């Protein structure tokens, strides 16, 4: 009897639920005027990039303060904006759960994020299935994300291959490194990041003495360090967050004498400001990425840094994550201001047109989008130096303007990338 009842009830419940979904969908898409904007933020609060959420909030705090709002929301031309946050651990699976929750349960109009590469690829795939929602990337940077054909997905910063532009030549010609050993995390971001470096380095004539692709979250690097061949001139460190901090401190205890070449997030402020004793190996490390050295003197940069350090839980200087989150979130806010808070219908077309046409001078230089909704940006090469007070900081080597995306994507590779 009970099961019979269940059998009869189920279709009714299903139909009612479907009807409810359709109705709510209609009311959201059908109404011409936007009465409220809900932005869902994805950021990491667990795992090796657990500081991502604090950095995202710091960036959003700076951006929202400029329009009189807070990290929880504000108002543009009378349209209230609510911001909700969803934490992830940096993996595809958790990003998938979090983005679905934001879109399907919280009913957000715009998704902002995520932090990590694999998460970004997942979110892009999900974006393809939800064309009515607009996605603005946070800091995920695999090359392929903006080549996937999701025309509701926008990225206002460079990809990880673009970030390495110029570093391979510099390492080979200026630093004179002929043979490099590669240690990198085993996921999409380091593939492209290392791919960008090594394709240039190998083209210049350099050799790779080996590649160790280690799982994300590896804490014990002692055996990896032991494998670095003696005839290596330098070691490429494609690690980030806590993994980079682990590697650097163990490189000190293991007495690594080789100079290092950093992937974009290896010698970020998050690693350099930690309290581990890493100066011995970190000083002299060269790296490429979207973060200028602290001596960078653009007024937009100085303003941003001054506002950033006022945020709760801010690092001594902005990390790559807060900079990318700021540039991206501010792009979104500028576009929202452009359309006076009216997203347009169908499919938020006015907002998307404004995002596509947006051009502004960010703290790290001018930003505009190409035809794939991928930013054309400035890129920086830096070197780690020790300040007068012993703290580690970076010095800018060079700046390249108007770097555009290539179309080559990378996978895990042995030796030089193909």
């Amino acid at each position: 009897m009970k099961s019979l009842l269940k059998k009869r009830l189920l279709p009714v419940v299903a139909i009612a639920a479907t009807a409810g979904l359709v109705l709510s969908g209609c009311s959201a898409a059908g109404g011409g005027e936007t009465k409220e904007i809900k932005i869902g933020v994805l950021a990491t609060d667990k795992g090796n990039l657990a500081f991502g959420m604090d950095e995202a909030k710091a960036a959003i705090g700076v951006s929202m303060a400029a329009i009189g709002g807070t990290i929880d929301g504000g108002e543009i031309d009378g349209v209230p904006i609510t911001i909700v946050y969803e934490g992830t651990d940096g993996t595809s699976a958790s990003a998938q759960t979090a983005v679905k929750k934001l879109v399907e349960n919280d009913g957000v109009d715009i998704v902002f994020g995520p932090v990590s590469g694999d998460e970004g690829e997942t979110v892009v795939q999900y974006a393809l299935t939800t064309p009515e929602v607009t996605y603005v990337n946070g800091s995920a940077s695999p090359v392929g994300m903006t080549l996937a054909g999701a025309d509701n997905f926008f990225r206002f910063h460079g990809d990880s291959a673009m970030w390495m532009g110029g570093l391979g030549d510099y390492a080979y010609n200026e630093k004179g490194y002929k043979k490099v050993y590669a240690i990198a995390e085993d996921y999409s971001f380091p593939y492209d990041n290392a791919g960008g470096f090594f394709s240039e380095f190998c083209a210049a004539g350099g050799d790779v003495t080996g590649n160790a692709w280690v799982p994300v979250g590896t804490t014990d690097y002692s055996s990896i360090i032991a494998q670095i061949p003696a005839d290596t001139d330098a070691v490429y460190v494609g690690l980030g967050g806590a993994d980079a901090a682990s590697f650097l401190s163990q490189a000190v205890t293991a007495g690594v004498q080789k100079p290092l070449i950093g992937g974009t997030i290896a010698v970020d402020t998050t690693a350099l400001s930690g309290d581990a004793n890493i100066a011995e190996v970190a000083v002299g490390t060269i790296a490429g990425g979207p973060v200028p050295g602290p001596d960078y003197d653009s007024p937009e940069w100085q303003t941003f840094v001054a506002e950033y350090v006022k945020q709760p839980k801010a690092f001594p200087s902005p990390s790559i994550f807060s900079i990318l989150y700021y540039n991206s979130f501010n792009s979104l806010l500028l576009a929202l201001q452009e359309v006076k808070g009216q997203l347009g219908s169908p499919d938020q077309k006015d907002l998307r047109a404004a995002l596509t046409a947006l051009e502004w001078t960010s703290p790290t230089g001018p930003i505009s989008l190409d035809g794939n909704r991928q930013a054309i940006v400035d890129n920086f090469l830096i070197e780690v130096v020790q300040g007068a007070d012993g703290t580690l900081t970076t010095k800018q080597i060079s700046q390249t303007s108007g770097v555009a995306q290539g179309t080559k994507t990378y996978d895990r590779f042995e030796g030089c990338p193909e």
Partner: protein
Amino acid sequence: MDIWPLILLNGLTLGAVYFVASSGLTLIFGLMRVITLAHGTSFLFGGYLGYVAASATDNWIIGLVTGLVAAGLLGLFTHQVLIRRFQDDDMRVALITLGVAVIGTDLMLAVFGGTATQVPFPQDLQVAVQIPGIGDYPLIRLIILAIAVVLGIAIYLVIARTRFGSIVRAGVDDAPMTSATGVNVRVVFAVIFAVGSALAGLAGVISGTLFPLLPGQDGSYLLFSLVVVIVGGMGSIPGAAIGSALVGVVSQFALVVAPTYAFVLTFALMVIVLAVRPQGIMGRPA
């Protein structure tokens, strides 16, 4: 130079950290037949407080003791206040300790932030020593291996040679019967729970000295401890030692031979042991 002896030693020193973490779990698991999912929380809590104490006093030993005591008190609190009444209901204990773990993870993230921290240890210990056949090796890893060995022998002797140890062993075999002979099993349970958590806290400080402490490690160390206990056999200290050494060595060799599959191979070890010897290497059939 042949690197295999070095990797073996790396695996053993990593296993030392796993052993300290999992010896506590094997006592709790073996004696009380309950899974505490808050074991990783004790680990990270002890590690963070050890970090605070060691940084404030510039004394590594004080850091170790602080981590041990703090996690022990957390364990005692969890046991006395939250799970004592439901001790025979393993499902409830699992859920309550899961709750403690989830709340603990978020509170620690709020207090200690998301960046990696590392427990400071004396500059004098940050040196390499010569080991024949291996070459230079970081002294701190050997010290930690020594701590684990001494601790393991001490726990083994307490369990094997003392009256308290015999009560614990009796409890592992048959708790109701032990209770019937007049032993206040509840006090024994409370002590074991506190000691088990304290060992996890000590492991947190030790691990935080070698590797960074960061959110998410509570989960990964809970997982590694469970693997060690399952591989070694519930309630067996020698089992935990063998299990930790195996997990440590396998993960280090895997990292060198097939880094991409390092995690997979570690769990494959557990699968193989479960398939061949379901009670674990040193475990007795239930």
